[in-house]
């Protein structure tokens, strides 16, 4: 699994850095590297662009995984002197990276602002580099065993539990000018091929938002 990121427009990044001079760059060596938004190359490209605009890039690190808070704490210990000299951190990672960096800095440097240079798109399946697809929204109550392995929450534009809706024409979805497949037709085709249309015929309950509609945590030790 990869958290898929795309680059924010550089002008947008400049606008949030308007009161900043000295920058620490954190560029994720994992998912963002695969998406070519972070990693060593992404960091190099961003540092060059920032320096061209007159910023000082005091330090650049490429942690193995920014979202792993343990790794971030370890990496920050090695650049402690640099952290004293920066106005802000710019991270080239997914949104989790910001939370992980802030947490890693909270005891010693709680006031260093952390900005992000990417947009987090989704957790995705990698077909090949440059082709990433969403197949799961992480709703916390997986239906895939009943829908032939195809997620209606993700593939149906309306996330319906009992599709297809009237917006389906010849197996295509009304959203996006009938170019994308209707998720519920994909489910129907798959279940039919598997001889499990009994599952398709089932009336399904709405999503239980009391479980999944808030910030979640998994804590088992």
């Amino acid at each position: 699994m990869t958290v898929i990121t795309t680059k924010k427009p550089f002008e947008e990044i400049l606008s949030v850095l308007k009161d900043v001079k000295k920058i620490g760059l954190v560029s994720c060596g994992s998912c963002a590297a695969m998406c070519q938004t972070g990693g060593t190359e992404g960091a190099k490209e961003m540092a060059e662009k920032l320096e061209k605009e007159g910023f000082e890039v005091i330090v650049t690190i490429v942690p193995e995984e920014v979202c792993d808070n343990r790794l971030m704490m370890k990496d920050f210990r090695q650049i402690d002197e640099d952290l004293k000299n920066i106005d802000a951190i710019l991270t080239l990672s997914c949104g989790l990276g910001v939370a992980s960096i802030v947490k890693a800095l909270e005891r010693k440097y709680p006031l260093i602002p952390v900005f992000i240079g990417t947009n987090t798109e989704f957790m995705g399946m990698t077909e090949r580099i440059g082709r990433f697809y969403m197949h799961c929204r992480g709703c916390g109550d997986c239906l895939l065993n009943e829908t032939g392995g195809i997620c209606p929450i993700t593939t149906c534009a309306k996330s319906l539990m009992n599709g297809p809706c009237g917006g389906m024409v010849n197996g295509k979805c009304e959203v996006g000018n009938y170019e994308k497949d209707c998720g519920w037709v994909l489910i129907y085709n798959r279940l039919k091929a598997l001889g499990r249309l009994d599952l398709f015929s089932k009336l399904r309950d709405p999503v239980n938002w009391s479980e999944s509609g808030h910030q979640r945590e998994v804590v088992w030790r």
Partner: protein
Amino acid sequence: MVEKKIYSKLGEKLANGDFILTGELEPEKTCDLSHTIQEAKEMAPYVVAANVTDSPLGIVTINSMAASHIIQKEAGLEVIWQLTVRDVNKLGIAGMIMGGHALGLRNVLSLTGDHPALGDMPESKPVFDLDSATLVRLVKEMVDKGTINGHEIEHPPTLHVGAAANPNADPMEAEILKIGRKAQAGCEFIQTQVVYDLDRTIEFLSEIKKYNVPVLLGIFPMKSYGIAKGFDTFVPGVDVPKDILAKWKNIKTEFKDDKKEQKRVYDQANYEFFKPFISELKRKGLLAGVHCMAVHYPRIFPKLMEVIQA
């Protein structure tokens, strides 16, 4: 067998097995419903009830519950309140069902609703907390059990709930099984998408007959060539037959200097197309009636009455 409770004229006619006609009203982006009320008055002598649409194509219009109430009150025509699950969550919809009842509405049509991305506020959050089948189930729980999520309602609502079906859907089997879910949820009547293909309609209606839900067939009499052509071009998944388009084009050309006669010929052409179509389905016992979706064409209703009474 449990005796079926009747809450509306529509419910009564369907229970009696009368072959009925329903119409459609499409309030627009306005707070003044006088045009719609006028149209409702014109169709009132012919139809049992008329649908009041809920921001079709995701284009925002006056709220359908408010419009339904005003039309019913001002035009004296029973309405079938169209309610989509697009804009309001389950909690809000349960409140609306009680509100709709309190405002005198006795029929509700459960619809998914067109995605906001299609309309004029594409940045709106698509809600779809329920879907068209689970909305039917919610209404049935509220009406039949007098509860919401198991919690008692002091004075429960009494409405008949219907749903939509699309005989044009491809793959058809997926649509048929979906109607099965709606029937399982307690759907009391079905109104179909507009149809022009008789063989396909017969196949579809024969398949869903097993669910034992009365079906009102969606038809769209075409007021002019422009409307027929527009419908063919802009309504995805519904094709107006080529010979019909050609015939309507001829009428447009042939009677261009006599608008009165042109209107009469268009009306007659609709009659000639729909009469055998509906008679055949009626003869096969596949229909409980007809739902005319042609808005702004109330003068066709006397002709349609002849069709359904044939």
